[in-house]
């Protein structure tokens, strides 16, 4: 099993404020990880740091992707290596159609210009699976999209770009029950033995159709607890407070192995 992502002793801040301190995490190909935690514990910060958001500064530690240090790489280089982030609040970009943007992105990550007809065919097929009317392809990127439509457009990008590691930052927030099912189905279609997922969520619904390998709880600026899928049920039923002292005992990648 090859290691895709390895985070070692990572400390991340915004300005003077430290949000993550000494965090470790390892994700191998073929694994699905779920990251949970109370609001404001730094889950989105971790996603941003992995993707290379310049608003966040890595103070120390390192991020390795397929064994290579990407800590100081820009987001586009990371994307071309096979990293993908589904944004919690995707940006609206007037003037660029979803199709045009996707074709440009596909060309950027693969290094080859996709053939127009084949790309359109693939895109239409993916949109059908996500129950998205094909008219969305010619709409301006995320402009005037509802919250749910934006989330579907993110999953559409996931399916078309087919990254090695996808991070989904609250891909289910703002979605109704049916839309969660569609998004969950889309995520399931993406997953295979060669790629991996890191899902940030508060909602068990999104992951109940997926085989979850590890669940991590983020607290006190680091991963305080790692367990199996059963941890989601415990958190859903008893909240984070119900986890008690376990949080203090286990942490990081090594803990993942023990939990399994």
């Amino acid at each position: 099993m090859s290691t895709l992502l390895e985070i070692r002793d990572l400390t991340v801040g915004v300005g003077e404020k430290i949000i993550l301190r000494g965090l470790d995490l390892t994700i191998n190909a073929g694994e699905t990880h779920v990251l949970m935690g109370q609001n404001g514990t730094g889950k989105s910060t971790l996603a941003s740091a992995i993707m290379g958001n310049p608003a966040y500064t890595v103070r120390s530690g390192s991020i390795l992707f397929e064994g290579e240090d990407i800590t100081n790489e820009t987001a586009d280089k990371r994307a071309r290596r096979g990293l993908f982030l589904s944004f919690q609040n995707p940006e609206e970009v007037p003037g660029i159609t979803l199709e045009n943007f996707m074709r440009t992105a596909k060309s950027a990550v693969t290094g080859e210009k996709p053939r127009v007809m084949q790309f359109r065919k693939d895109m239409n097929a993916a949109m059908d699976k996500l129950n998205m009317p094909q008219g969305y392809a010619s709409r301006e990127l995320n402009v005037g999209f509802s919250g749910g439509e934006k989330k579907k457009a993110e999953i559409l990008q996931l399916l078309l770009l087919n990254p090695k590691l996808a991070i989904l930052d609250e891909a289910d927030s703002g979605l109704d029950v049916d839309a969660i099912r569609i998004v969950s189905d889309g995520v399931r279609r993406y997953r295979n033995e060669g790629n991996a997922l890191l899902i940030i969520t508060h909602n068990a619904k999104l992951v109940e159709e997926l085989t979850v390998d590890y669940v991590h709880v983020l607290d006190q600026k680091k991963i305080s607890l790692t367990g199996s899928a059963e941890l989601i049920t415990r958190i859903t039923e008893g909240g984070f407070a119900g986890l008690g002292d376990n949080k203090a005992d286990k942490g990081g990648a090594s803990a993942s192995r023990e939990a399994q």
Partner: protein
Amino acid sequence: MEIKLKELNALPVRTWHRLGVNGNTVETSADDTLSYSVTRSALPDIVTETNAEELRCAEFRTAVGEEATEYIRRESNAGVRVRARRGYEVEKPVTARYSLRSGALLDDNIIFAEAGSSLTVVLIFDAFNGKPCFHGGSTRIIAENCATVNLIQIQTLNNASTHISDVSAIIGNGASVNVTQIELGGASATVGCHLKLEGNTASARADTFYFGNGDRRLDFNYIARHLGDGTTSSLTASGALFDRCDKTYRGTLDFIRGAAGSKGAEIENTLLFSPDARNRSAPLILCEEEDVEGSHAASIGKIDANKLYYMQSRGLSEVEAKRLLVTAQLETVLKNVPGEEERERLRDYLSGRIKANALR
């Protein structure tokens, strides 16, 4: 020949001189001999030639200024003068493409849409070589009741040329005039548009895209004058400034007493790519009438960091993302340009102009 034109693009209400937005002066020279080629589309049967005599009762106002428009009309050596017959919708656009070699091209254009007709006119100004040329244009539009006029002006002159364009429209009851101006070239471009919404429920749009790099000087003056009841106007200007480009935009919504229920909106989106580029904006809303809505929105500055990061997270390099964002601005006005061939030419032209080093 020496050309000096003063008090161009005057702000309807003058402000402090030190702000530098009250008006503009153009001083340039061009060869005495005019050399150019023109390609014009054949006029459909339902469109006839017209002349200035037919406009004698119309009271046009100018945005660029009396001195310049009088000069252009007096010395005019070209022009499209068309009249669409009552009730006919002219599907095929009337197009004139000028390619300048040298000298001063002065085109006096008249677009007359009789009641209930609709007409699209495309004027393209290009240059063959790097020789400094002068283009001065005056376009007068009459849209009678319930008529529609679409005017598309495209300017891709060379970097040594000077361009002046004045558009003045009188819009009748239920009529609409839509002006699209794409300003990509020239050392200096002075563009003005006066939209007189005379009839009730008349509507007007002015959509502009500009690209400024090097030492280019761009000067815009848009005026929507609301006279009739329930009139609507929309003035939108988008573009990108690089290097030491100097741009001034004036946008005026003028609601005259009696224009009850009228609405006007002006929007400006300017992307700044250089600390040495200079952008000046003078939005103005004048109200004599109480029952009106006028709005102004502006976004002027560097590319939004979050948008850039979002695009980079999909694999686009910073340069590619910026290029796509500038192209996206062009795409919003290309929707108004008839003909895929011309749209493709403009995409290629802009792409050629956006050099990677200009985006860093």
